[in-house]
């Protein structure tokens, strides 16, 4: 029988076509179909990076554009990651057999990915670049270099000079020892109910340990034994450091990093360990806070060091990269002095990896940035260990238990070490 409507048959085929396209699209979308070439024949280099702020993105975009001009055979495709879930996304991508050509990694993750054989050995690049850049220790794992230092980071002690005056001390003068720091924090805490002597990070992953480690290291303690086989936190030095942090917290406020930064800008916090972003944030916000930045204090006169946490952002080339040579070329472009400093100027970063930083007026003429550069020279990176992310979680667990008085300092360290030793006893992830 013929259709009563002349177009019904056509419509039915159109429907089949649409359904077929939908299924095809669905299946096609799920399959790996990324092309290595642009329509005009250029080779695509995929860069995954964490600089998402508009000003930073513009500098990276410009550097990528300059790279394409100098190397017309390449086209750079940039994918943004965030620190909140970037690690998971990278692992998921590697697990799915997908990888970019050039990948920015946090210093804490390098050993993990190197151990899983997910990264390319960059030792030959290291041999050529080691005198030009700083921050190599975090990129060396099992005697090979797996990453190129891009931007380094450290933490310094911010001091509210107005509050220092209010407690009768001289503004701009650093607390050189833990005792002085504690004494001043105590006095400031008594000024007014809403003024606090010290900002304590709590209940915030990946931050708390950075505030405890400076005290541990300055006191001469360490996280792991020299061979990395056991936890070494449960030592007299570890106990002294943790006890000091717990005691200091009595004269401070436990808050998240962003809130502590805000309190500092509101003249409500005397001391606060923070990064270079706070200096930039204060400048941009126009906050009237009078402040200075200082190196970490010594445990006591003539004892220990002024050590802070060192970390950073590194460029790596995944083992599955389809354009490793192009990726290394692009890495060198991003690492060149001009680009590296431009990105710092755009974002307020105080510690680029390029060794000429100390001589550059942008860094040398700013009193706070200068402190960051000095502090970096006395900073230490966490152990380069493939299970560092898990160790870090346990370390933060222990510090939090002590801060919230759930456990005594010795119990917290003992139990943290037991948990870390359990991790260390597990086989490698590869």
């Amino acid at each position, binding site marked *: 029988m013929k259709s009563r409507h002349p177009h019904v048959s056509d419509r039915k085929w159109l429907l089949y076509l649409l359904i077929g396209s939908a299924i095809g699209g669905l299946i096609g979308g*799920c399959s790996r179909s990324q092309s290595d070439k642009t329509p005009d024949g250029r080779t695509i280099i995929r860069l995954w990076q964490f600089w998402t702020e508009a000003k930073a993105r513009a500098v990276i975009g410009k550097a990528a554009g300059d790279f394409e001009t100098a190397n017309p055979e390449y086209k750079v495709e940039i994918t943004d990651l965030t620190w909140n879930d970037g690690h*998971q996304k990278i692992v998921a991508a590697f697990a799915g057999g997908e990888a970019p050509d050039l990948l920015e990694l946090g210093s804490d993750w390098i050993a993990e990915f190197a151990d899983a054989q997910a990264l390319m050995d960059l030792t030959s690049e290291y041999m050529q670049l080691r005198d030009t850049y700083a921050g190599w220790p975090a990129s060396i794992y099992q005697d090979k270099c797996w990453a190129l230092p891009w931007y380094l980071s450290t933490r310094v002690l911010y001091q509210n000079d107005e509050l220092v005056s209010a407690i009768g001390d001289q503004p701009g003068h650093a607390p050189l020892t833990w005792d002085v720091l504690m004494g001043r924090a105590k006095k400031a805490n008594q000024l007014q109910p809403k003024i606090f002597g010290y900002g304590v990070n*709590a209940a915030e992953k990946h931050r708390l340990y950075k505030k405890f480690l400076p005290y541990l290291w300055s006191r001469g303690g360490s996280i792991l034994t020299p061979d990395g086989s056991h936890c070494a936190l449960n030592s007299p030095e570890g106990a002294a450091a943790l006890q000091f942090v717990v005691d200091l917290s009595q004269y401070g406020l436990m*808050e998240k990093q962003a*809130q502590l930064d805000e309190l500092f800008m509101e003249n409500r916090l005397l001391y606060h360990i923070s990064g270079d972003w706070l200096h930039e944030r204060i400048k941009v916000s126009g906050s009237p806070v009078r402040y200075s930045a200082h190196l970490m204090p010594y445990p006591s006169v003539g004892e220990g060091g002024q050590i802070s946490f060192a970390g950073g952002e590194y460029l790596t080339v995944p083992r599955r990269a389809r354009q490793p040579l192009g990726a290394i070329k692009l890495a060198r472009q991003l690492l060149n002095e001009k680009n590296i400093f431009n990105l710092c100027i755009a974002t307020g970063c105080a510690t680029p990896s390029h060794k000429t930083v100390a001589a550059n007026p942008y860094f040398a003429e700013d009193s706070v940035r200068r402190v960051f550069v000095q502090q970096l020279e006395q900073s230490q990176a966490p152990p380069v260990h493939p299970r560092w992310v*898990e160790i870090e979680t346990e370390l933060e667990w222990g510090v939090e238990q002590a801060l919230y008085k759930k456990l005594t300092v010795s119990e917290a360290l003992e139990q943290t070490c037991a948990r870390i030793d359990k991790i260390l006893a597990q086989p490698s992830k590869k």
Partner: protein
Amino acid sequence: MNTRGNVTRWLMAAPWVVTLTLFWAYPLGHALALSFTRYDIFGGSWEWVGLANFRAVLQSGAFWTALWHTVLFTAGTVPVTTALALVLALALNQRIWGRALFRAGFFAPTLTATVVTSLVFIHLYSQQGYLYQLAGWLGFSVPPQSFLLSESTALLSVMLMDVWVSIGYYALLFLAGLQTIPRELVEDASLHGATGWQQFRAITWPYLRPTLLYALVINLIKSLQIFTEIFVMTQGGPVGSTTTSVYHVYTAAFERFDLGYASAAAYLLFVIIAIVSLIQFKLLAFGRGAEE
């Protein structure tokens, strides 16, 4: 039906079947398989471990603590949200001035992304935040630090936010249920001198029962799966006081990459949710026939 008809039917159903298979059935099956293995996420290799992951989950104190927090969250939010939403729906069902505006206003939090709401509440609950200041001003005992950083108030604070966000949605559901009640029935009851409470018991409640059952089941499942708020606001802290079951699964899967353990924990949670939902169905369906 002829072959051509069968083909047509299959083609029509194909997008749904393919989507269901790829994005629902396959991940479920894959996760079930993973729960019996030790899986190397980087190498892609796996080792059969039988029920070891399930045993590890059941022997883990952290799993039971997380489950307890989830139960507390659910027990604290579901009844409160349901009761308040019902009261709100009854109020919004009256002929009051600005009714449409109120309806839209109460529903607005539901339309806002949970991440955004959570970020706003982080600030509201902080030392500098409005709610913290208000609580202190009203004479409540406030912790020295933010509500979210105090062990005694963190979970409660997340629960309060969840109630605030959810009320509008469930009120809208109840409002839809109330619209199905024949007006003449209510008018007739009024004419015969039935009080407001008698009308509610004899008319509103039986008509609203299916909506209530739906709302309770949906809210219960949602509460047992609470994750985003925890992820954004507390990350399970302080000292693990807000670690819920799904957050526990998440940390196992995406921080420790122990996918076998995480899958086993997720399946156990699935079984628990299914049992609780079934019990709820039985309890609420009981006596329905008699009333109808």
